[in-house]
């Protein structure tokens, strides 16, 4: 049986406004009791019977966050086999995030990818015959999360984290060199210098933490990719969607993908939308790269907008695209309806088993239908935005918090006159917390730094 208590949002984060935060582990009841207030304010969750539902509120200190239903279940008759509490949140995505954050603040740890499933298995709640499947889930969730956590980290954040780590590593190595070779490196007066550095670096991390709290380390949104042959009307569609009445959330400059990415907000639903190179057979090398990137992006997309030029008959390039669409949520846009039709819309509907919407950028028709369709798919849960991004964001936030705490411990040690060897213990913890954000571990970093920066040994 595990000893930690973990939490995560266990439903997809759709804008439907209802979602579940799940807490599992020996301290699930204790943790949630700290933040749950019943209507009358008297009921404590700690002693309620198992498998009961309770109405009430989640509070972060004095602040009421959400009106909720709490399902209290004691192990072993739960999904994970452990004591489990599920908080059914009503106040939308933001409230759900706040509820999770509050639970984390009160002692739960954020769940690793696939961890609920892993626990369920290890506690005998999942059949032995499914072991293989469980292992697949863990591995694939982890790969997905890794791709997110490293790939989606903004360039500037990554750079700052790296700089802080370099600085910390240098000072850990300096202290350790002095401990290993005390006749060579002297630490007299060093603690004042270190105190200054620690406070500077701590401030930088707090800056990052604020960015994380604003949710800006990584952008969340439904990953939407516009596909189509060259000149099918893809860019016009994007421009139309980006029209004046629609807010551009942000732009990502310098993405390595060479694909234009924009954030747009359709009545509260964020789309991270990418316009891609037109897909066609080509010998041109540059264009080839663009095409293969477009295919790559389509594979990762939550939603594809396939633009078909209705004035030109379908050809082998369309066939190519339709192959990509398989098993992807797609909306087909029957574009350029202002021109003479060369494709029968009913034929198109039967060929691709996905919703088809006629649209004309020139006459600005069909765009409302598209918005309506996207909203409908989102609220019905057909598409959801990628909650892993949010979870990863939250994981990063937790690591920043830990790093700040470790640096505060260094400050305490310096203030209370502890010997220098104590500093490097907490400095190393901070270094490792930041490393987890970048997906890097301490490994031989320290030993390498000692040998490369400090001349050691007789």
């Amino acid at each position, binding site marked *: 049986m595990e000893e930690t208590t973990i939490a995560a949002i266990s439903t997809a984060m759709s804008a439907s406004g209802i979602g579940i935060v799940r807490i599992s582990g020996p301290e699930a009841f204790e943790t949630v009791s700290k933040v749950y207030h019943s209507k009358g304010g008297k009921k404590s969750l700690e002693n309620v019977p198992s498998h009961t539902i309770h109405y009430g509120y989640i509070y972060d200190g004095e602040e009421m966050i959400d009106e909720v239903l709490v399902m209290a279940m004691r192990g072993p008759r739960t999904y994970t086999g452990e004591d489990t509490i599920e908080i059914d949140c009503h106040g939308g995505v933001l409230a759900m995030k706040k509820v999770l954050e509050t639970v984390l603040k009160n002692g739960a740890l954020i769940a690793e990818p*696939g961890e609920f499933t892993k626990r369920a298995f290890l506690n005998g709640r999942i059949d032995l015959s499914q072991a293989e499947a469980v292992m697949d889930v863990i591995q694939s969730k*982890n790969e997905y999360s890794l791709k997110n956590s490293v790939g989606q980290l903004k360039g500037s954040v990554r750079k700052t984290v790296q700089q802080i780590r370099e600085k910390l590593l240098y000072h850990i190595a300096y202290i350790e060199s002095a*401990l*290993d070779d005390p006749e060579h490196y002297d630490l007299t007066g060093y603690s004042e210098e270190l105190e200054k550095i620690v406070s500077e670096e701590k401030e930088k991390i707090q800056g990052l933490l604020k960015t994380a709290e604003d949710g800006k380390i990584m952008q969340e949104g439904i990953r939407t990719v516009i596909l189509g042959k060259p000149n099918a009307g893809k860019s016009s569609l994007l421009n139309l969607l980006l029209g004046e009445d629609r807010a551009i959330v942000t732009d990502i400059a310098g993405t390595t993908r060479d694909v234009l990415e924009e954030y747009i907000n359709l009545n509260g639903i964020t789309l991270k939308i990418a316009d891609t190179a037109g897909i066609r057979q080509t010998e041109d090398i540059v264009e080839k790269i663009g095409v293969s990137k477009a295919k790559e992006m389509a594979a990762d997309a939550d939603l594809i907008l396939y633009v078909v030029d209705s004035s030109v008959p379908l050809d082998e390039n369309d066939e190519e695209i339709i192959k990509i669409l398989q098993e992807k949520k797609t909306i087909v846009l029957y574009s350029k309806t202002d021109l003479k039709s060369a494709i029968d819309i009913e034929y198109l509907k039967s060929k691709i088993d996905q919703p088809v919407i006629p649209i004309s950028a020139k006459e600005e028709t069909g765009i409302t239908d598209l918005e309506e369709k996207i909203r409908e798919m989102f609220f019905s849960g057909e598409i959801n935005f990628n909650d892993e991004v949010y979870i990863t964001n939250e994981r990063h936030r937790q690591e920043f918090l830990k790093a700040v705490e470790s640096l505060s411990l260094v400050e305490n040690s310096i203030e209370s006159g502890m*010997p220098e*060897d104590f500093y*490097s213990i907490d400095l190393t913890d901070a270094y490792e917390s930041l490393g987890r954000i970048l997906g890097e571990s301490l490994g*031989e970093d*320290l030993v390498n730094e000692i040998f490369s920066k400090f001349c*050691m040994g007789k």
Partner: protein
Amino acid sequence: MKNLEQFFDIIVVGAGHAGCEAALASARLGLQTVMFTVSVDSIALMPCNPNVGGSSKGHLVRELDALGGEMGKNIDKTFIQSKMLNQSKGPAVHSLRAQADKQAYSTEMRKTLENTENLTIRQGEVTELLAEDGHITGVKTFSGATYHAKAVVLCTGTYLKARCIYGDVSNYTGPNGLQAANYLTDSLKKLGIEMFRFKTGTPARIAGNTIDYSKMEEQFGDKKVVPFSFSTDPESVQIEQKSCWLTYTNEKTHEIIRANLDRSPLYSGMIEGTGPRYCPSIEDKVVRFADKKRHQVFIEPEGLYTNEMYIGGMSSSLPEDVQYEMYHSVPGLEHARIVKNAYAIEYDCINPRQLYPTLEFKKIKGLFSGGQFNGSSGYEEAAAQGLIAGINAAMEVKGKEQLILDRSEAYIGVLIDDLVTKENHEPYRMMTSRAEYRLLLRQDNADLRLRKKGWEVGLIDDETYHKLQEKERMIREEIERVEHTTVGGSAEVQSLLESQGSTLLKSGTTIAELIRRPELNYHVLAPIDKERPELPEDVCEQVEINIKYDGYIRRQMKQVEQFKKLEQKKIPEDIDYEDVGSLRIEARQKLESYRPISIGQASRISGVSPADISVLLVYLESRSGHKH
């Protein structure tokens, strides 16, 4: 032709620091043991620096002593200067270092070996290992003799295909001109063992009467010497000590070196072995740290039997004439006469990832190894492994459980785990920064950590063990007492606090709370601690450390709890990683080649991710079937 044939329980190959500990452990555990050496006169030889201990290495010696090893006792008998390093820092990094009389060290160890029952010392070169069905059966020597045994411990140090080099001169000898062992490597390779080639070096020895000490800083030993061994009477080590001397290289030295780099075998490509970064040659330091104006040079006596001085910090493989020029540029060495040249040495060693943490080869049952042969460096690292390899060879022959120390129990555990688990491409040296739980792994509590294990193994006698239990009891009771002894703001208390520059009391507190104040300690509080019993100094020390650093210690103990959980999840020896679905290919290959004994060890292999570990856990669970 009829050749000699003999039978033993255990064969130890090599009589250096690892070999001595291995042979002593095995013989003391009652097994008929033979120890081979190419020269009986080189037993426990110190071919490089004349000291034992130092930062983190001192920890190793203390741990070895607590387990029943010999190095600590031997250096206590033969040291000529001793220092506790890092005394101004925390207790975890205090470390003992002693200068040895090299000849006395060697002679004393030889006497101990000669007077140990069940132990045969034999001069001769082992040239071949004999194995059947993946099981060691004995060795053959150069003379053609066959020695049969149930286990073999290889401690060949730097002797395998050794080559000593300076300038364009190279000699196929072991250290100090001793005969190299040129055959064993091929026998190992035939058994499928992967070999590495490493390099290390040593500075020149200079005639003491040609050194001008007036130009150097004198370095004294500690006024009150602390012995290495927990069994040594502290009074017996308060001897008259010899001094060491400190001088520096300068720009002129560096110029001479730079001007002759093309004649260095390191840069000409003549040396192929991988050298250690922590113990660079002076030419390496000058090249890599070009902005440093000077480097320290420590002049250390080789012993009382000679006037030879060891030139610490200036190891080199430059040609003879350059060595002369370069040493002469150092203040105090202007007229120095070289007795022995500095040289680099190359040798064969194994890739230690082929060993279990017991130091037994995964491929060959009954074959163990320790010391530089395993890719480490240093006398202390060697001795520590030798002891563990010797103990485990003996345990195997006796059919008893083997001894594995983990990373939370001892520096020895860190050392061995690093060797057998981590990629390493240079001779491995112990460092305090390698021990993640170092607040717990102090040199002062090595006996409390390890005596019991030594006793369980059979190297520590009942009386010594009972003494330790008594010490534990006293520490426990005294901690309990000071945690619950309260003092108020009486005039006596306040005046004591004032005299120590400590804040006065506003309300009552405990003696323990006062000990935690940085400016106070256990001893200064004696006058206001009325009920304090008379206790031995080592008990008081433990009480003080445990109370003063209580918060930090508890944090590390909590981390250790987590760590232990993974260490205790054992991986069955017969696991087939091909069966574990969903493992990434890289992880599968690594796990297959390392074959870790526990989930904990698996998690430390580079290239194995936390998700792979989860997958492995799920697999192990499904294999064993759910138990409820």
